[in-house]
């Protein structure tokens, strides 16, 4: 039996990890809700943002957190462009399948270009506060992890307020729930969909920065993220943002706790086990998106 302190530390780390998962999964859910697109390139953009943060720090000594001033608007624009210029070109009848291929192709492109530009070498930012840690009730937690979690919480809260309190959020939710009806209400759904994609990619920029703080990065790292993220959105119920957030926290916690008896590698399987179990026994997910039954 692991000691209480170890358990507590794992719970804490799981919570911090789950927060990051929740932020990233919310982006993925947003795309799916808006256009029924499974955006495979989401985690590739995540790694791209991490690389940009590392590069800016490496070249100009800019703190990763400051790099967000550039990457977040940049990614927002990229998202709008991606939706308006590429995804709308696909035939509606085969949109789900073809968009997967298209975003998959973009993921390969990003991975290849990162490898070309920065080589496959593993990179890591060395921050002055990188090794600092706090002691919380006997558990040691790295400061950078807390910062990453803080970023995730701030971004998720902003997203939540944006969705619930603003006129744009109202239009976005209307578009997600019933595109045709939204159009009848005078909402320019294409424009809203473009902005929705931009916001989704902006979450990847925030997530990537958070990731770069305490993770060793390399071009193919995005595959280690997309699997868990896809599992999270299925378990949470495709298209449901709160569902994805809850699933992210639960699974992040499970991964962290399972690392004690199983080790880091096998603990990752929890995502896939959850994915298969969900699809086999409750395909609509556990925190039920209405859309999930049909996809």
């Amino acid at each position, binding site marked *: 039996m692991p000691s209480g302190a170890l358990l507590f530390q794992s719970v804490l780390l799981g919570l911090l990890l789950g927060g990051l998962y929740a932020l990233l999964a919310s982006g993925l859910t947003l795309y*799916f809700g808006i256009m*029924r697109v*499974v955006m*495979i390139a989401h985690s590739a953009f995540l790694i791209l943002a991490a690389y940009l943060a590392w590069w800016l720090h490496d070249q100009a000594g800019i703190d990763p957190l400051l790099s967000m001033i550039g990457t977040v608007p940049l990614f927002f624009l990229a998202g709008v462009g991606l939706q308006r210029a*590429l995804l709308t*070109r*696909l*035939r509606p009848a*085969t949109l*789900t*399948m*073809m968009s*997967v*291929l*298209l975003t*998959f*192709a*973009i*993921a*390969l*492109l990003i*991975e*290849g*270009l*990162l*490898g*070309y530009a920065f080589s*496959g070498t593993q990179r890591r930012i060395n921050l002055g506060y990188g090794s600092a840690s706090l002691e919380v009730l006997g558990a040691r937690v790295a400061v950078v992890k807390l910062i990453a979690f803080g970023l995730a919480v701030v971004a998720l809260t902003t997203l939540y307020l944006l969705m619930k309190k603003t006129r744009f959020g109202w239009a976005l939710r209307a578009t997600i729930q019933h595109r045709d009806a939204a159009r009848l209400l005078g909402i320019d759904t294409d424009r809203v969909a473009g902005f929705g994609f931009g916001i989704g990619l902006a979450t990847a920029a925030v997530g990537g920065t958070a990731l770069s703080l305490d993770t060793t990065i390399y*071009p193919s790292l995005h*595959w*280690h993220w*997309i*699997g868990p993220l*896809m*599992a999270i959105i*299925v378990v949470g119920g*495709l298209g449901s943002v709160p569902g994805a957030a809850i699933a992210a926290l639960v699974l992040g916690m499970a991964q962290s706790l399972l690392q004690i008896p199983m080790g880091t*590698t*096998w603990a*990752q*399987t929890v995502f*896939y086990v959850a*994915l*298969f179990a969900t*699809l*086999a026994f409750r*395909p*609509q997910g556990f925190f039920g998106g209405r859309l*999930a*039954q*049909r*996809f």
Partner: protein
Amino acid sequence: MLNASRALKAGAILLLAAGILAFPSLAPNPYILSVGVLVLNYAALSTSWNFVGGFTGYISLGHGALAGLGAYGTGLLVAKGGLPPFLALFAGATLVAALAVPIGFAALRVRGASFVIVSISLVLILLLIFQSWASVTGGSRGLVVPRPFDLSRPEHHRVFYYLFAGLLALALLVWWLIDRSRFGLGLKSIREDEDKAEALGTATYAYKLIVFVVSAFFTALTGGLYALWFGDLDPVFQFSILTGSYLVLMALLGGVRQLFGPVVGAIIVGTALEYFKGAYGDTPLHLVATGLLLALVVLFMPDGVLPAVADLFKRFDRTQSSSIREVTASELRDERLKKAEGAAR
């Protein structure tokens, strides 16, 4: 006009078959011959992929993993189980087909998106397992599969070249049989409109599951044959997300609704792949090229090369005969009957 285009088609197919069969005697050195084996391996894999992708329209990015499972199944049965190589090949493929039942059960219950998610996850989880479970799979040290024949290197390639060609022919035959069957018509109606197909009485879930298992069987068979040919398995290559994307690219480029689409795509992409590997080695630019090409095909040529060529011929035809669309019912019936009788003989 219809007969002329059919003769043209038959000629093209004969030419393709003759070219494939004659290749080993024309290949100047064993390296080129081994490239030929690889291309046939890709052709067999993408044709196997096309059982699902072409008929039902469900895009799997995880068929690389099914091939890898077939390779490791065969390899382990030979190396650790002591089974004769070709018995191991069929046993391995059967095991993978059996495993495809629960996978399909989970992946196909709902529509498209979940299927893609499961297919990618399959690659990721199997890579994880086969790398970590070193005591059984050899982990990243690899698994050496003993060769089935005691032959010189060129002879070894030649024998396997024909084995792969035979397997490809078998996969094509089965695809063709399904294509013209009622089962195939049901599958295609799923591709066109799944709700509608189900409302007309097609048991869509069972249909999808059956064809997925058939596809997995052929994919695993090809993977197993690869293991016997290549003799050395590494999880990183067997469970690579890239293999799956190559297969999709090949099938899509050639045309998923065509019997020979994936073969044509495999010849184009496979040859290019090996050429660039030979000329420039393994660089990240492979990924860039694959990504770009895939994006271009998806955006501008989702039906593939073969239909594009066929359209070109049709336009050329139309300048001579006023309309080829309007066929009277009786003509159509006669033609179908003739075709049916021809097939029965």
